[in-house]
């Protein structure tokens, strides 16, 4: 008889009942989904990024579908941290699912101020610093584009709170490992990899950009190979640092792929849109996968990529 695998994970002190979280901006704060699905199966929820002031976001159209992916240009619409505290705070406290609050801003000062207003919310197990959203007014507001700027934001946030901070990075850089290392040196507890890739689409009938904001962020299965690569590169360089893998997870196998590359947990974004039950289904699927493989838990996947060739061949080659 096979024993069932345990799914709980411990990211150097940040614990989740299973390794699959809902990604920021793709699940609200969970409140919207509470009536739709059973939230109990979730490993955790990363909230929609919250900024200091209420933010209306960008003009529509805000999304465009692309092959196996989508572009979005929401522009961090959110009611601001005060209303977030008032409306989502009580919900988060009562939820029973670990919540990570995603914090965004356009200056080090803004990240700091928002951090101060969310660090004490009950139910919040960590803060994710969204320093990589491509949908900001100027590219120089994407702090994760430069190691020094990223470190400055993360340093300011980690000085203000004992709540563990995860730095969410972008793949749109020459050297993601350098940015990751700078964030860890600045005090980041862990890393969330990756945010959307900067992309664009044009309607060939009208010659108009398909997004009101012209450019936007590419997400979905299309970007998974880039996410796997980023997780792998960073995990090789920083094996002790918890990494949350993000990008194109729609099925348990996709999550396993990111974990084998080096992720300690994963997040599911776009898949929620077409499958509201995606997070819990991926988590359950990981459980079945582990059990089928006779593995005890997610740590048996983490970073277990086989770089040597002398491991068994896939079945079709054995005949």
């Amino acid at each position, binding site marked *: 008889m096979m024993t069932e695998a345990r799914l709980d994970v411990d990211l150097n002190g940040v614990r989740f009942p299973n390794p699959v979280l809902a990604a920021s*901006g793709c699940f609200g704060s969970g409140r919207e*989904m509470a009536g739709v699905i059973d939230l109990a199966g979730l490993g955790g929820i990363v909230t929609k990024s919250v900024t200091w002031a209420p933010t209306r976001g960008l*003009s529509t159209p805000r999304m465009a579908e692309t*092959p196996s992916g989508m572009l979005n240009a929401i522009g961090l619409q959110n009611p601001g941290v005060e209303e977030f505290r008032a409306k989502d705070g009580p919900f988060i406290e009562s939820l029973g699912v670990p919540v990570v609050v995603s914090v965004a801003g356009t200056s080090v000062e803004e990240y700091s101020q928002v951090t101060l207003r969310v660090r004490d919310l009950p139910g919040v197990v960590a803060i994710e610093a969204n320093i990589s959203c491509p949908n900001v007014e100027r590219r120089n507001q994407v702090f994760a584009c430069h190691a020094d700027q990223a470190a400055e934001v993360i340093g300011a946030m980690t000085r203000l709170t004992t709540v563990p901070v995860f730095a969410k990075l972008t793949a749109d850089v020459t050297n993601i490992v350098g940015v990751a290392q700078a964030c860890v040196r600045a005090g980041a507890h862990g890393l969330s990899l990756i945010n959307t890739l900067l992309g664009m689409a044009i309607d060939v009938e009208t010659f108009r950009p398909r997004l009101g904001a012209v450019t936007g962020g590419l997400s979905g299965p299309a970007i998974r190979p880039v996410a796997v690569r980023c997780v792998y590169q960073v995990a090789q360089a920083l094996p002790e640092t918890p990494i949350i893998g993000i990008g194109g997870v729609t099925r348990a196998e996709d999550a396993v792929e990111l974990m084998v590359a080096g992720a300690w947990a994963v997040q599911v974004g776009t898949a929620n*849109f077409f499958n509201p039950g995606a997070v819990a289904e991926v988590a359950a699927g990981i459980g079945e996968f582990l059990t089928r493989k006779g593995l005890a838990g997610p740590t048996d996947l983490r970073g277990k990529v086989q770089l040597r060739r002398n491991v068994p061949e896939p079945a079709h080659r054995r005949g």
Partner: protein
Amino acid sequence: MIRARCEVLSNRRTGRYHSLTLVAPEIAEDAKPGQFIEVGVPEGRDILLRRPFSIHQASRRGGWAGTLEIVFDALGPGTAWLAEARSHDVLDVVGPLGRPFNDPGDLSTCLLVGGGYGAAPLYFLAEELRAKDKAVHMIVGARTAERVFKPLEGKRLASSLVFTTDDGTMGELGRVTDALPSVIKRTGAQVVYACGPNPMLRAVGEYCRDLEIPCQVAVEELMACGLGICWTCVVPFIALDGRGWWNVRACVEGPVLNAARIWWDRWLGASADDQTPPEGFTAAPEPQLAKPWPR
């Protein structure tokens, strides 16, 4: 809201449109006019997102016999795929979604204005209003005759009905808005419900606002989720006191919205990149706010 695997009962052409009937008892049970469903495209295709469609009919036959009908135009890959669905195929459906048209309350004379496939949910609304003994008048318009949706169904349901076509192939030549003033005058409409292309909704909404007639419109904006979690589907919406605005989600705060409170210029017009409302926008509360729409 329910996610269900629904069997296709039939998939027929209706003029230019496709009319798809699904066995969906639980969704049909809850569905109200103005709400929509999201239909999944099958796994393994390069389009990921569900497609939203207004509910044209919900037959609550009790037990497992309840059906839902949607009507669609085959425009792109999703609808082209859906047009191929055959009886007994099974679709992945989420619904009913969004806020329906409101009950008119004490108001008794209703005018329903539909454009293209936008007429589909209005027939459902007409049934409900008639069941409440409201007077139901309709204007149904389209580009051309074959895009006038189920004209006979309209005639059956409405006390009076005007057709318009852009090319004059059916009913009056012109747009629904050309017919609107005379129909409102003739029928004494106290409330207007509209569904159709957004520019049509804008024209109807602005006309009604000037006359201080409450007007609800079912809008369309690109939707990634339909569930309120992605913020792609927003419409700029004016605060109740007329001061300021916010982007509301068409999929949860809408798709049915008070037309008078939509900031049309920003949404559909040239000023879309302008963050500052035009002169006088925040100063004067909207006329119809004196008679707030019952919600």
